[in-house]
């Protein structure tokens, strides 16, 4: 129980990596805030799972692109639990396409949803974490932010690369306050987000992964648990979890 007494907020926790992360953190003893945007059913199911593990869970709806809603979410968290130790910025969308199809409107929406939201959520928890002189912020970026591959849109790759830069600068800003900020860069994790591929393309893509398989959302959750529980000298790092698909 490495996270006993801790409170964690995971955005986009109704499915996929967010869901697995919320459950894994709860399994290690944390009480959870399960954020969702539209998938209420999924979020409630996650809450049930967390309760079964003997931990408390608060389900909160918010559009992470909007400051007001995010601030309210953090206020609700503090009202319910009294403190917040871990923020996992996981909420995000994908839009695989070539640049010819990417309009300014799509670009703006992607940047808002995948990058600006991370800034908004970090700002919303900042005062609290700085006051406590402690906290972990973990941002889910993507291999696409480094490699630009895998059919990702240019807006997606740019947003995810932005998350990496934000992570490092924020780590620098907050190090002296005892707050660690890190990122995790997954590739090809078996969730809804990668299933836009045809069976053929999926098979072809998996052949390119040295470990020869997709990653499990639980495996990304494992990195989050490691960072939140055992990584007090790691900050500003981006941890790749991609089956060997990309190495730097």
């Amino acid at each position, binding site marked *: 129980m490495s996270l006993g007494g801790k409170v964690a907020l995971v955005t986009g926790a109704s499915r996929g990596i967010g869901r697995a992360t919320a459950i894994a953190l709860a399994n290690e003893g944390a009480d959870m805030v399960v954020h969702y945007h539209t998938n209420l059913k999924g979020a409630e199911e996650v809450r049930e799972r967390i309760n079964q593990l003997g931990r408390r869970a608060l389900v909160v709806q918010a559009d992470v692109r909007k400051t007001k809603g995010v601030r309210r979410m953090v206020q609700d968290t503090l009202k319910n639990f009294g403190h917040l130790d871990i923020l996992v910025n996981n909420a995000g969308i994908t839009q695989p396409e070539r640049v010819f199809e990417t309009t300014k409107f799509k670009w703006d929406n992607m940047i808002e949803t995948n990058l600006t939201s991370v800034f908004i959520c970090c700002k919303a928890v900042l005062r609290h974490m700085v006051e406590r002189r402690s906290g972990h912020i973990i941002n889910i970026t993507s291999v696409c932010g480094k490699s630009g591959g895998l059919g990702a849109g240019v807006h997606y790759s740019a947003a995810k690369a932005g998350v990496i830069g934000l992570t490092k600068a924020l780590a620098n800003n907050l190090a002296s306050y005892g707050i660690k900020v890190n990122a995790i860069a997954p590739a090809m994790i078996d969730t809804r987000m990668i299933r836009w591929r045809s069976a053929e393309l999926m098979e072809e893509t998996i052949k390119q992964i040295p*470990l020869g398989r997709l990653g499990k959302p639980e495996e990304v959750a494992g990195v989050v648990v490691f960072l939140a529980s055992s*990584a007090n000298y790691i900050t500003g790092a981006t941890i790749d979890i991609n089956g*060997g698909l990309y190495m730097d």
Partner: protein
Amino acid sequence: MFKLAKKVAVVTGAARGIGRSIALELARKRASVIIVDLLIGEAEKVAAEIRKIGSQSLALQVDVTQTEMVREKFGEAIEKFGRIDILVNNAGVLQDAFITDIKEEDWDRVIDINLKGVFNCCKAVVNYMLQQKRGKIINIASVGGKDGFPLAGVHYSASKAGVMGFTRQLAKQLAPYGITVNAVAPGTTETEMILHRTPQQKKELMEKIPMGRLGKPEDTARAIAFLASDEASFITGETLNVCGGLYMD
């Protein structure tokens, strides 16, 4: 999470410093640990500490630069324990020197221990891991191998950069067999390796570190224990920086 029950680990350079900390951390996670070092007396002490925690341990005196000795001694130990799940290549030396003060034998020595040693030890365990179709190799690199440390010699940084290149290549080659290969890049850690540094030098170093302190051996040990766990099985070819924010890439 991250338990290592029934796993057998070999840690080189585990008599002191980061290596010793790694060995103890793996033992705490319930792994059996083979302590490899030239300093057999201190290695035996660590093995004894591990037995007190309740895990099995064996101390081996091995010179990691000797290919045949490594193959023989590792083979004996692995046969004794019945398997090898984790290899941590930690044995290494540092020499602070400006390039013009580095003699040919200094270069050879540092490259031999820090880089050839990694090659020798990996060579000695790979066949066993291939048979098992599982295994984890973790190499200690260094932030010096990416960013350079002002005090360290070029041979040190070159050897550590070499460790990272080696790590990625081996990761690619062993991935189809379910074996992961990763590295941890510590920043400056408070161990015997930097006893020769002055308080002033340490102060100057700390000023550059966002977290404001030097690393402790446990910081790296915990990262190693994570990479050694089954939970980290989708991570390979990765170098994880454990440096308090000194270097970010």
